[in-house]
């Protein structure tokens, strides 16, 4: 009955990894492009983890980057301390993974706490409370001198690299997919579809909402840690409301509920954002006109509006690519 099927996603991922790695080794890709690929993969983790909360469980969250911030600050602080005690640590990936996990766990804990308001609040109200929580987290970073206050946490060792980020993203997608395509995932989906009905077929909606927030926050925390150790900096403004909105745009542009959509949008929008940055600077240099970097966000926000107006269901709708999906046996 259980015919062994080729794990399509594993093959696709290995191919992707091999191509990028090879192109980089052959110097077709430069460090800058690889850096953007790394960022895209981090955004894949952020978007797919928000997708679990928002797209699958139907709980609107506007503070997702707050979780990433917790992960970044916690893991960043840990590695910075360890680095001070032992400068050779940068060669020890095991320690880094442990610190990342610690960041993830801390974020998960905050996610667990934030999950509770979701028990009583829905839709807009929940959105606003998660926004409030995100802002509180940011305010706290801003006011703790030990982590640099408004200057941010500087001098974080550079642990993150393509291989590590790739593995993290790969694991995230597999784990998310396996959750979504299980009885637990269906329980979460039922909450999105009709919470009262879910309750009245015996689903402990409380437990699943908190679970979605906790798991989502855990992965956001990992992503935050990876980001901090990639750009060697954790700064309060990186984790504010606007950044949370950028992640939200990704899942809506990709199609709420579709992991495939989140992945495509994370890559597409990260590259677009960089492209705009370069393009606008080039235009300003070429024309000598006072064209500021703000135009990037003007275009970005217009893009968001147009996506909502003309393709409300996003790129993929709720569809999932067959590469990611597990074929169900009867």
């Amino acid at each position, binding site marked *: 009955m259980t015919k062994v099927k080729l794990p399509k996603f594993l093959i696709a991922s290995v191919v992707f990894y091999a191509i990028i790695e090879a192109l980089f080794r052959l110097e077709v890709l430069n460090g800058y492009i690889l850096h953007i690929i790394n960022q895209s993969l981090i955004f894949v983790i952020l978007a797919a983890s928000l997708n679990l909360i928002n797209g699958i469980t139907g709980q609107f969250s506007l503070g997702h980057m707050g979780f990433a911030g917790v992960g970044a600050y916690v893991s960043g602080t840990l590695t910075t301390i360890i680095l001070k005690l032992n400068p050779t640590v940068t060669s020890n990936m095991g320690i880094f993974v442990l610190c990342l996990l610690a960041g993830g766990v801390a974020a998960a804990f905050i996610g667990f706490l934030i999950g509770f308001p979701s028990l*009583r609040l829905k839709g807009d109200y929940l959105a606003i409370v998660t926004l*409030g929580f995100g802002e509180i987290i940011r*305010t706290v970073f801003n006011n703790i001198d030990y982590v640099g206050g408004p200057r941010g946490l500087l001098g974080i060792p550079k642990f993150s690299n393509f291989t590590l980020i790739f593995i993290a993203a790969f694991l995230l997608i597999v784990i998310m997919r396996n959750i979504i395509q299980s009885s637990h995932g269906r329980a979460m989906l039922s909450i999105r579809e009709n919470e009262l009905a879910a309750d009245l077929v015996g689903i402990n909606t409380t437990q699943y909402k908190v679970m979605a927030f906790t798991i989502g926050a855990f992965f956001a925390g990992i992503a935050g840690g990876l980001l901090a150790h990639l750009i060697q900096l954790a700064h309060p403004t990186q984790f504010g409301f606007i950044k949370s909105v950028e992640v939200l745009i990704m899942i809506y542009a990709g199609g709420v509920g579709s992991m495939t959509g989140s992945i495509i949008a994370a890559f597409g929008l990260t590259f677009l954002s960089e492209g705009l940055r370069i393009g606008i600077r080039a235009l300003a240099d070429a024309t000598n006109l006072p064209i500021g970097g703000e135009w990037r966000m003007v275009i970005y926000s217009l893009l968001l509006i147009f996506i909502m107006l003309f393709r409300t269901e996003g790129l993929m709708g709720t569809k999932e690519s067959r590469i990611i999906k597990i074929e169900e046996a009867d």
Partner: protein
Amino acid sequence: MGSIFNAQQIVNGLQVGSIYALIALGYTMVYGIVRLINFAHGDFFMIGAYAAYGSFFIFNSMLAGKHGSIAFLVLIVSMLAGGLIAMLANQLAYKPLRYKPKLSSLITAIGVSMFLEYFFSALPMIGPSYRSFPDIIPKVQISLGSATISNYVVIDIVVAAVLMIGLTFLVRKTALGKAMRAVSQDKDAARLMGIDIEKVIGFTFLIGGSFAGAAGLLAGMTYPRIFPYMGIQPGLKAFIAAVLGGIGNIPGAVLGAYIMGLAETFASAYNSLLGEGIAFAILIIVLLVRPRGLLGEKVADKI
């Protein structure tokens, strides 16, 4: 803390509360009628401030010295600017999504908000930096018992009060007000009464936006510094005030705004971090304890 200090704090709290109230009313009215948290509402406040700034120099050159008339005209312009941009946002960005899932309009509203902020700071004639706001009316200190207040405090409180009384009359007594209530309760039924609901909704945005615009002028006069992102914080605070009062409920928004104004003034006097965080703390506590806000009615879901 002596009693003088307290009296001063109360006056300051009422002043801040008045500005929050004008903004909060727009949030609450728009939410009441289209169930949308209009994230861009704080930006109409910013637009009102810039419109007041620009028009002041024009009117001042035309009517030099006539402070009363200038102030009145500037008020009208700031209200018109806020109101018209609000109507435009509704027409272009929200109306097409009226019958789509609610969250898509919420996200669009975030988009509109970001657009207005970045567009204004990207425009060369406005730019991202601060501008100092002129004294539209000469500032006078009034001694009131043991506290000293400026005439601006009085203006803020009185202008807000007059506008709010006008609004109450409009909603309670006029046919248009009844139509607004009808549209907020059942859009199909309102259409079947022959009401052009899009006109009524547009009008609601106009009123809400114009109140935010007026608040922009008052805030510009009071804290004489304007910049394209100035709407974010007050917008958020006023929104919280509306939620605190029970979003969709007009008296609730006013009550919530004054509570917020006072709480924030007292908290800031005590500790600056507390002042920064009190609004969110209030929000979270209220929503956890009384999710429908102070005056919000519990609407039983039809099951």
